[in-house]
């Protein structure tokens, strides 16, 4: 956990009002999301599958084209960069996928896979590259014999280490981990989380950690952002979130994660509804259909994102919630 003073540092990554939809499905995947990620910190992005988390990751890497909004990396809009700057930016942002058995190229050896980013970004000469490759293998805990082997010859934990090595070999500033430990067994998950934590400490990278598993987020995140149906509902520092989340949806998530059914939950099994259609409609709160704390205003007007002021001066990072319950400015007491 990082406690550096960053009150005056501009955020490393700024997402402003990002909207994204998949025209083939006529579905809004990301709905006017604004997020900040400060340097050296880990932001846990949590939500059910289909909430839009992975779409944001892909938008940051310019793998999908957003409908509107901006993404600024170190102050520069990545959608307005010239090709030269874009390439330099891509070097600084790397992605680790969920399933290493398909995110590594099956017909390339480990060495080829690790060398590719170095060659593509023209980092160092052949000798320097060889050194870096050996170094990163050691850092992620694999022996040098791995270099000539193919991905399918490794276990899933080892494969994920290779994927992490590939992501880190370019010395990025930002690492995006998209459900990077979700398909791993518990003991291997623990090892990989330890590795990620250690790497963050040693290399000082910022991490956008996407997961649906709150327990994992608890272990690794400094800040938590909650998404639901493409919208950002809450963002708060981890300690504050886990001692008492602000948004009703977050509260239910936390309850379920602790194995309890949240109180006030509606009886009809709303979570069984069929494949959802998100409308991007700004006239109601997106969660109003199922919220146990629903008020009349929730169905007439979409709530604004409210800042929560905390009397504890040492709270770092954004602290806000998109909910009518917080329409008057409240002082949070815990």
């Amino acid at each position, binding site marked *: 956990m990082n406690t550096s003073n960053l009150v005056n540092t501009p955020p490393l990554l700024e997402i402003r009002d990002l909207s994204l939809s998949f025209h083939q499905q006529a579905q809004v995947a990301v709905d006017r999301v604004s997020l900040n990620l400060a340097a050296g910190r880990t932001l846990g992005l949590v939500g059910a599958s289909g909430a839009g988390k992975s779409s944001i990751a892909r938008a940051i890497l310019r793998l999908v084209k957003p409908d509107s909004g901006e993404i600024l990396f170190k102050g520069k809009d990545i959608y307005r960069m010239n090709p030269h700057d874009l390439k330099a930016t891509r070097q600084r942002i790397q992605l680790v996928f969920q399933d290493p058995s398909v995110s590594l190229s099956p017909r390339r050896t480990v060495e080829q896979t690790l060398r590719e980013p170095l060659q593509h970004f023209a980092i160092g000469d052949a000798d320097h590259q060889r050194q870096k490759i050996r170094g990163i293998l050691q850092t992620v805990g694999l022996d040098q014999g791995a270099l000539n082997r193919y991905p399918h010859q490794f276990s899933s934990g080892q494969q994920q280490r290779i994927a992490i090595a590939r992501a880190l070999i370019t010395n990025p500033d930002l690492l995006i981990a998209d459900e990077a430990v979700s398909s791993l067994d518990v003991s291997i998950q623990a090892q990989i989380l330890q590795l990620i934590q250690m790497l963050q400490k040693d290399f000082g990278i910022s991490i956008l950690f996407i997961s649906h598993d709150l327990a994992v987020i608890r272990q690794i995140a400094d800040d938590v952002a909650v998404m639901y149906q493409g919208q950002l509902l809450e963002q708060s520092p981890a300690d504050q979130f886990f001692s008492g989340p602000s948004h009703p949806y977050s509260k239910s998530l936390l309850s379920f994660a602790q194995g309890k059914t949240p109180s006030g939950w509606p009886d009809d099994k709303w979570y069984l509804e*069929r494949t959802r259609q998100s409308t991007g409609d700004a006239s109601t709160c997106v969660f109003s259909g199922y919220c146990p704390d629903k008020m009349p205003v929730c169905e007439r007007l979409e709530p604004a994102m409210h800042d929560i002021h905390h009397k504890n001066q040492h709270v770092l990072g954004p602290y806000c919630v998109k909910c009518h319950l917080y329409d008057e400015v409240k002082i949070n007491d815990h």
Partner: protein
Amino acid sequence: MTTPALKVTNLSVWFENGSSRLTVVDQISFSINAGDATGLVGESGCGKTMTAMAILGLLPESGVNVRSDGIEINGRDISTLNTGQRRAVLGRDIAMIFQQPATALDPVFTMGQQISAVYRRHTGGSKQQARKSMLQALESVGFSDADDIAASYPHELSGGMRQLAMIAMATVCKPAVIIADEPTTALDNSTRALILEQLKHLRKLHRTAILFISHDLAVVRQICRDVMVMYCGRLMEKTDCQSLFAHARHPYSAGLLSCIPQISDTQPPPIKSIPGQIPAPADLPLGCHFAPRCNRAEAQCRTSIPQLDCDNGTGAACFRPL
């Protein structure tokens, strides 16, 4: 002493490759009584799915060897049955729920058609009877709009609904035993809670015995009374859930528990992990399989195989339990 609903004795599964033998399930024995749920917990590759497939007789005839001293459902040994007799048993006396309902269901038939088909195959009832049972099954898993669901195709339903429909399909003949293989792993937390609730409800309603296979100890705890921990084909610990969570006796179980991330409102402790890696089936160590990674291992652990240390088949398979 009532007859257990499911009793497995010394089940082994292995592959033979010329001169070498790869054992993936090594002399597993356990029993589950009617109305009880037992969890089979372990990490990928430990042999839990193989165990389930072996019990059901779903492993291919060639290339895989299965041997046991008995697989009994309500006292009747099914391990000696031929394929035709086995097929009669599957679905009627014992049924399986899979991890990925999307791939386990046929996309060109409606849910109603698939569930009715299962019913008719085993009871030979009329179409009306089948439809009635099918609707009943759907209602018993919590669908208030059973007619609607019956008329839907699998791809029209969400993941959670598909899994519930699968459970309906597995229970329409009211089997004595259900084997659930990672049924909630692919689902979100909220849907998971619902599925588990339904399984608990069915267990009470039909007095079904459930073998719940999972890598997730936390989920097992919510639904099972007893639990078995498996590692590299062997049972490391067999006990009830409460005891395991309060005080695990096998070092592997304890290690596994300590790896589980916890949600706490205070700063979480540093992440713990079990050092080393799970050995491949071809490289299994002699003696206790867990010895190379265990900080309590002594010479004996590397040469002899520890057995479960209690007489009634429970306890920890360890020479130096915690």
